[in-house]
C-alpha cells in the first residue's frame, strides 16, 4: 500500500481495517486474532498469547509493530534473566563521574516478552508492574515508559518443567489472552508456498504512527457505552461470581477490561457505540484466562468459561 493511498483513508475504521488486512498478508487465516490483538492495543491493554511454538506468535508481534509504526523489542525470557536486564541499569561513567542510566528493552513502545514463564517470578513481576504502571522505578528513580506502550507476552503451555507459569492473579493484568492455533489447510498451503515471512515484514509499509495511535486510543476511551451494555456487563460479572461454575469470579478490573476491549472492537467495526455483539466478540479473549473453570472430578470439561457465560447470560 502506497503512502498516497494511506492519506486517503479518512476514518479510523478504514485505517484499522487496512492494518488488519496488511497484517493478514503475513499471518494467514488469523484475521480474528489480529483484530483482537489490535483491539487490545487500542484499549491500552496487554496481550498474552499462550500457544505452541512455531504457530507465528513472534511473527504476529513483529508484523503488528511494523504496521502500527512502533519500534519493536523482543525480550526472550530465560530462567537467568534478571529484572535489570528488562528494566535497565545505571552504570557509573568514569568520565562524567556520574551514574548513567542505560534503559533496558522495556523502554520500547512494542515489546514481545517471549516465553515469559521461563523467567523467575522476580523478573516476571518487574515486567508486569511496568505493564501496569506505565513507568519503572530503577534505583529510586521513576521513569516513564513510552506512550503507546504495548506488550505481547507469550507463554508455552507445554514443557512446564523448570518454568514459573504465571499465577492467575497475574493473568488478570493481561487484557486479553489470544489463542493462535494451527492455521487451516488453505492458509497453511499459502504459508508453505509463500516467501519467507521475515522478508515480507520488512517490505510492509506502516499504516499508523504513534500520534495517530494515541489519537485512536483516545477515541476508544470516548466511545459511548449505553446503560444497557453496562447492565449486560454487570450481569456477566454477577454470573461469573455467583453461578458456582468458576472457582472465583471476574474482578472489577475484568469488568473494565470487557468494556474497554468492546469499545476498541466497536471502533474497528466503525460503530459509534458499543453493541452486545462487541462484548460477545471479545468475551473469550478477555475472560477465559481470568476464569479457571471449576473442574468437577471425572467430568470432561470442554466448554470454555466464555462459552458458558455467553450461553447463560441474557441480553435485556
Amino acid at each position: 500500500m502506497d503512502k498516497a493511498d494511506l492519506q486517503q483513508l479518512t476514518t479510523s475504521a478504514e485505517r484499522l481495517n487496512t492494518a488488519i488486512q496488511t497484517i493478514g498478508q503475513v499471518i494467514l487465516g488469523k484475521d480474528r486474532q489480529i483484530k483482537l490483538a489490535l483491539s487490545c492495543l487500542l484499549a491500552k491493554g496487554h496481550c498474552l498469547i499462550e500457544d505452541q511454538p512455531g504457530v507465528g506468535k513472534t511473527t504476529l508481534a513483529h508484523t503488528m509493530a511494523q504496521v502500527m509504526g512502533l519500534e519493536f523489542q523482543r525480550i526472550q525470557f530465560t530462567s537467568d534473566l534478571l529484572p535489570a536486564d528488562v528494566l535497565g541499569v545505571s552504570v557509573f561513567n568514569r568520565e562524567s563521574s556520574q551514574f548513567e542510566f542505560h534503559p533496558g528493552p522495556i523502554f520500547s513502545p512494542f515489546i514481545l516478552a517471549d516465553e515469559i514463564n521461563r523467567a523467575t517470578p522476580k523478573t516476571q513481576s518487574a515486567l508486569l508492574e511496568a505493564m501496569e504502571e506505565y513507568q519503572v522505578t530503577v534505583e529510586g528513580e521513576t521513569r516513564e515508559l513510552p506512550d503507546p506502550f504495548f506488550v505481547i507476552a507469550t507463554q508455552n503451555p507445554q514443557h512446564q518443567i523448570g518454568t514459573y507459569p504465571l499465577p492467575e492473579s497475574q493473568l488478570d493484568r493481561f487484557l486479553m489472552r489470544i489463542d493462535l492455533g494451527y492455521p487451516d489447510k488453505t492458509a497453511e498451503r499459502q504459508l508453505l508456498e509463500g516467501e519467507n515471512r521475515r522478508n515480507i515484514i520488512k517490505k510492509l509499509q506502516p499504516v499508523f504512527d504513534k500520534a495517530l495511535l494515541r489519537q485512536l486510543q483516545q477515541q476508544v476511551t470516548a466511545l459511548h457505552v449505553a446503560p444497557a451494555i453496562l447492565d449486560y456487563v454487570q450481569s456477566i460479572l454477577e454470573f461469573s461470581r455467583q453461578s458456582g461454575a468458576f472457582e472465583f469470579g471476574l474482578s472489577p478490573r475484568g469488568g473494565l477490561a470487557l468494556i474497554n476491549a468492546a469499545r476498541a472492537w466497536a471502533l474497528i467495526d466503525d460503530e459509534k457505540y458499543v453493541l452486545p455483539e462487541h462484548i460477545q466478540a471479545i468475551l473469550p479473549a478477555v475472560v477465559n484466562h481470568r476464569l479457571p473453570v471449576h473442574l468437577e472430578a471425572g467430568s470432561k470439561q470442554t466448554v470454555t468459561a466464555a462459552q458458558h457465560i455467553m450461553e447463560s447470560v441474557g441480553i435485556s
Partner: protein
Amino acid sequence: MNKRLSKPSSATLLALLAGIHLSALPLYANMPVVILLLISLLTLWQVFIIKRQQENPGRTLQITIIVAAFLSLLFSYGQLFGQQPGIALVILMTLLKLFETRGARDGYTIIYSSFFITASNFFHSQSVWLVVYVFFVIAFLLASLIALSDRLNTVSTKTRYRMASRFTILALPFMLILFVLFPRIPGPLWGLPDDAFAGQSGLSETMSPGSINRLISSSAIAFRVKFHGDIPEHNQRYWRGAVLSIYDGKTWSRRDVPLTEPPNIQYQDTKARSFRYSVTLQPTNMNWLLALEYPESYGAQYTLNHEAMLLTENKQSNVISYTVTSQTTAVNRALLEQEQYKNRLLPLNHNPQTMALSDQLLRLSKYNREDYIREVLSYFRNNHFVYTLNPDLLGDNAVDDFLFNSRRGFCEHYASAFTYLMRAAGLPARVVIGYQGGEMNPLDDYMIVRQSDAHAWAEVWINDRWQRFDPTAVVSPDRIEQGIQDAGLEQDRLPLLLVSNSHFIKSMSFLYDSFQNSWNQWVIGFDQKKQNDFLKFLGFENTGTANLILLLVILLTLTGVAISWLILRQTIVERDPVQHYYNIFCSRIGRLGLPRHLNEGPVDYEKRINRELNLAQQTRNDLGFIFKAYRALHYRNQSNSDLLKLYIKKIKAFK
C-alpha cells in the same frame, strides 16, 4: 427541632388551605352568613400566617377561636347536631387544624377531612356537574397528598398533578364496581336527618295564599313522565298530589286519614281511558306521590288512601321512579257518611260577605246543587277576576277580601275561594294540590313537569262522587288548555325557559334535560330493583346480599390485580420504551418461528432472521429499519423522540 416535625412548606400549606375551600365550595351556597364570615376571617388569617412565616397562635388563642366557632354555629343553626351544622363544624375544625399544624401528620389529617367534606356535598345535590367537580377536587387533594409526602421535593408540580390525575382515573373502575354492586338498602343509604332537604323548593303539604305562587318562577323539574302508550290532552294533565281538607281561615292543610279507611274508586271496564306511565320524581320530602286521576295499578310498596292519594312509606328524600296506570274516567266514591261534615267545616264568624254571597247564589239556583256550582263559576267568570302572579295582600277575612276587593289572584286563591263557597253552601268540598300540565321533550319522548306547573284545584262531593272543578280554568282557560306560559301572566315572573321564543334555547334546554333525565334514571335512581334487573340482564340470577358482596369482593380483587399489573407494565414501558417495544417486536418474530435467543444481540439476531426467514423485500426493509433504530436508540448516547415515534409506529405496524 425534630426533622419529622418540621412544618410543611408554605406552598404545601397554601395547597391544604385551597383544598379545604375547594372541597367545601358548593356547600357555601347553603351556609349562614355568620359561618361564611368566620370562614373567610380564618382563611385570611391563615394566609397571613403562611405568607409572613408567622408562628401558630398560642393555646389560649386557639381555644378562644374554637369557642367562637361553636358559638357562631349555635347562633346560626340553634343547635350543634344535625346535618348542616355538622358539616359546618367539620369545615371550621379542618380550617382550625391548619392553625396547629406542626408536621406532615397534621397535613394528612386536613386532607382526609377535606375528602370527607367533599363527600358531604352530595347531601345537597347529586347532579352530574357536582360529580365532575368532585373529580377535580379529588385530583387536587391527591396532588396535595403527594406534595405532603414528597418531603425531599423530588417531584415537579406538573408530575405531581399528572400522578394525581392518573390515580383518580385508575380509581374509576373501582368506583363503577362499587356503584353497580354495592348492596342497596331500600330508602336512603344512611339515615338522613330531618333537615336534609330543608332548602329544597317544591309543593308543601299546606296551601295558603302565595304558597304555589312562589314556585311559579322556578323552572326546576318536579318530575318527568314517560308514557307507555297514549298521552293525555293538556287539560287532562291533572297530576294529583295532596288532598287538603282542613281550613283555618288562612291555610288549607291535610287531614290525617287512617290507612285503615279504604279507597273507594269505581274503575270502568269498558270505554275506560287508561294511561300507563312511569314517573321519575325529584325528592319532595313528602310521603305522597303524584299521579293522574285515578291510579288503578301501582307498585305494591305504595298505598292508595281513602282520599285517593298515592302514599309511600317514607318521605321521599331521593329521586324515585314508579309506574302507574291511571283511569281518568274512574269515579271516586270514597266519602263515608260520618265524615261528610269534615269536608263542610269552615272557621266560625269568618268572611261574612262570602257567606251572604253563598246565600244569594243558593237562592238564585233554587237550592239545586249543580246549578249552584254553575252560578259560582259564572260569578268568577263575570266579575272581572284577574289571573295574576302579583296578587294583593289579603286581610283577615281572606276570602271576602279576595272576592269583593282585590279580585286578583293566582290558582290557590281561586281554589280556596271556590271551595269555601262550596262549603258555605253545605257541599262537601276540598282543595287538591298538584301539578297541571307538562311539556313533552321532543328529543327523548318523555314529559317534563316543572315546579312552575304547580297548581291547585277543588273537588266537590256531588252525585255521590268527588268531582273535580278548576275555577282557574274559568278565569284563565289558557292556563289549563295551553299551560302556564300562555296564561296571560306577567312574563317577567315566569322562568326565562318558559317564555323564551328562541328555538335554540328551548332545544338546548330539552337536550340538557334529556341528559339530566338519563342521569336520574341510571345513576341516582339506581336502586335495589334496577340493580337486580341489571344483574339479571348480566346473567346473575341469584342476587342476594351475600352473593352481591361476594361478587363485589371478587371483582374488586380482580380489578386491583389488573390495575396493579397495568401500573407495573406502564412503569416498565415508561422506564424503557425502546426495550419494551423491542421485546414486543422480538415476540412477533418469535411467532414466525424464530424467537430471539436470550443471549443474542440485535446484530446477530437480524443476521439470523435474514438468513433463515424468507421475507418479502418490504418486510426486510422494515426489519432493517427497526433493528437499526433499536441499536441507535438503545445503545447510543442520544435520545431522538422522532426516531422513537417512528420506531414504535413501525413495530406496531409490523406483522
